[in-house]
């Protein structure tokens, strides 16, 4: 036995337990090859490293290494006021800042018992679903890019994303770092012109999804590369705490919009798409279907949005001291359950500020999905998890 084989055999023995994936034995006589994929690897969506042990092309072990983008967000938040953490939340999952804002605002509103006006709730839903749409579109684009179709689907996705980001910029002043939500509403009101523009953009979105599907869904190469690859059994997904499209692709019906009905989601009529196999293709398909459902919610919300204030006139955004206590606010972010857990000791800063990031927790089962697969598929499986390193490392 070579050194590396002994090392991995020992490491596997030590780690054997209820939570460990099955050990895959190398089948040849050759040595294991250790490859550090990343941190600068085009497929890793940022600075993320996978230490892979390969037997030929087969993955025997995979160790995800993260922390390269650690920015000390949680500790910083304990030292600044509640309001000052709001722009930092934009930088967690920088593809969908609106939903990060929302989850944090929800947690603080729970802590202080703050009410949110009707119109602000509608605006939150509209922006949240736009965010979901553009996140899924670009994540599919990245997934296909990693499959080798460099550019085309990604650029189509970005063309659509551009329209949505323009809406964000017009309303909030920034394309990505929006800093839009406040405790007790939203920062600025949407003008009728903006709402009309949004309606126009939303009317164009189904055409984009149709185009995307014609381009990809029945493509034989995509099916050959993705079907049966990166299987995630429902039991493992539930045990590992996986949420979002990943979990639903494995066939578990769990959507916090339905479970919690936070905000005003119980007013909208929408379905939760579920997958059968839990492979990469199912994850792709779930995202496509969720984009369609998001368009449905957007249409309903844009039809019903009432007039009124967007900010509770009694709400304080700065200089407030919540009563001692704790609150957990969670939403269905495009990537999964995004939660903010806050403890207040009655001071102007949170005593403890903790984020439950969907990206990090969805990433923990990466090894289980990759074992026994080809190294080229690892990149694909990793892409199908849909992570943003800003949120993984915080």
């Amino acid at each position: 036995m070579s050194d590396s084989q002994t090392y991995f055999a020992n490491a596997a023995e030590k780690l054997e337990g209820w939570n460990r994936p099955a050990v895959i034995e190398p089948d040849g006589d050759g040595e294991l090859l250790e490859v550090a994929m990343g941190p600068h690897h085009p497929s890793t969506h940022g600075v993320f490293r996978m230490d892979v042990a390969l037997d030929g092309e087969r993955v025997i072990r995979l160790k995800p290494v993260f922390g390269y983008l650690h920015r000390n967000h949680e500790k910083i938040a304990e030292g600044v006021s509640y309001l000052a953490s709001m722009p930092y939340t934009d930088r967690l999952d920088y593809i969908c800042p609106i939903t990060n804002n929302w989850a944090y605002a929800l947690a603080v509103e729970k802590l202080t018992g703050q009410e949110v006006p009707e119109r602000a709730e509608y605006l939150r839903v509209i922006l949240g679903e736009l965010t979901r749409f553009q996140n899924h579109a670009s994540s599919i684009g990245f997934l296909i890019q990693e499959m080798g179709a460099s550019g085309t689907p990604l650029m189509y996705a970005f063309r659509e994303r551009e329209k949505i980001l323009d809406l964000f910029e017009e309303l909030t002043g920034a394309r990505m770092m929006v800093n839009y939500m406040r405790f007790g509403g939203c920062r600025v009101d949407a003008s009728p012109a903006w709402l009309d523009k949004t309606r126009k953009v939303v009317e164009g979105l189904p055409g984009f999804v149709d185009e995307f599907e014609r381009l990809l869904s029945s493509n034989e190469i995509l099916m050959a590369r993705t079907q049966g690859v990166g299987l995630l059994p429902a039991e493992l997904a539930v045990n590992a705490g996986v949420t979002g499209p990943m979990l639903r692709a494995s066939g578990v019906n769990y959507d916090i919009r339905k479970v919690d009905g936070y905000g005003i989601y119980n007013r909208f009529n929408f379905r939760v798409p579920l997958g059968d196999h839990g492979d990469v293709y199912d994850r792709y398909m779930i995202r496509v279907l969720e984009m369609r459902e998001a368009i449905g919610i957007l249409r309903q919300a844009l039809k019903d949005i009432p007039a009124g204030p967007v900010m509770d006139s009694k709400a304080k955004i700065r200089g407030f001291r919540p009563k001692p206590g704790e609150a957990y606010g969670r939403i269905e972010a495009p990537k999964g359950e995004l939660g903010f857990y806050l403890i207040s000791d009655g001071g102007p800063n949170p005593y403890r500020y903790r984020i439950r990031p969907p990206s990090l927790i969805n990433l923990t089962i990466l090894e289980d999905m990759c074992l026994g697969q080809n190294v080229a598929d690892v990149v694909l499986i990793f892409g199908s998890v849909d992570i943003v390193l800003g949120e993984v490392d915080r």
Partner: protein
Amino acid sequence: MLGEGILKGMAETAKNFFGSYFSADRLTTVEYPEQRIAPFEAARVFPFLVYDAKNPPDAADWEAGMRCVACQICEKECPPKCIYIEKSTDRKPDALGKPQFYPARFDIDISVCMSCQICVEVCPFEAIKMDTEFELSTGDRFGGLLLDRKQLAKSNEYYHQIHLNEANAVDARLAAEKAKAEAKTKAAVAAKAPSIAAATAGEGA
């Protein structure tokens, strides 16, 4: 048939490719330095300090007309703490004629600033606003990105140029405040006046 899906996808890309010759909607990019898209009304990049010039194009009275009273709320609320303010020891009359402190030093390190607009939101004096200028690259990464109060000072007219609706709303609010303050002083003078009149009348008798 095997390959049907691929052909369908190819047809889609071909449609997009040829469509771009006929439909302007399909061309989504502009050639940046030559062509520019005007920024949105709400666009924000880095903060600047507003001053009221007496004779508008004149930039000489940036120091006298500065609205900032060095209350330091923005410095306290700034999430990455990129604002540094030194309060003056003496007072100067502001637009309403009330003696106020002014910032003896007001620095913003725009290499740290994260354009969150919280300083603008918390400022009670409408003194700090967001600029839309984004071409700020410099060879000097420390000194060149640390802006002092003179570099930060921009006139109210400039503010009108970049955020017209917002600036008009701010002007209306400030004018209302000023009118209210003037009415108050007038009322105070008027309240004093009868007693003076009565006193002089008493003297006369």
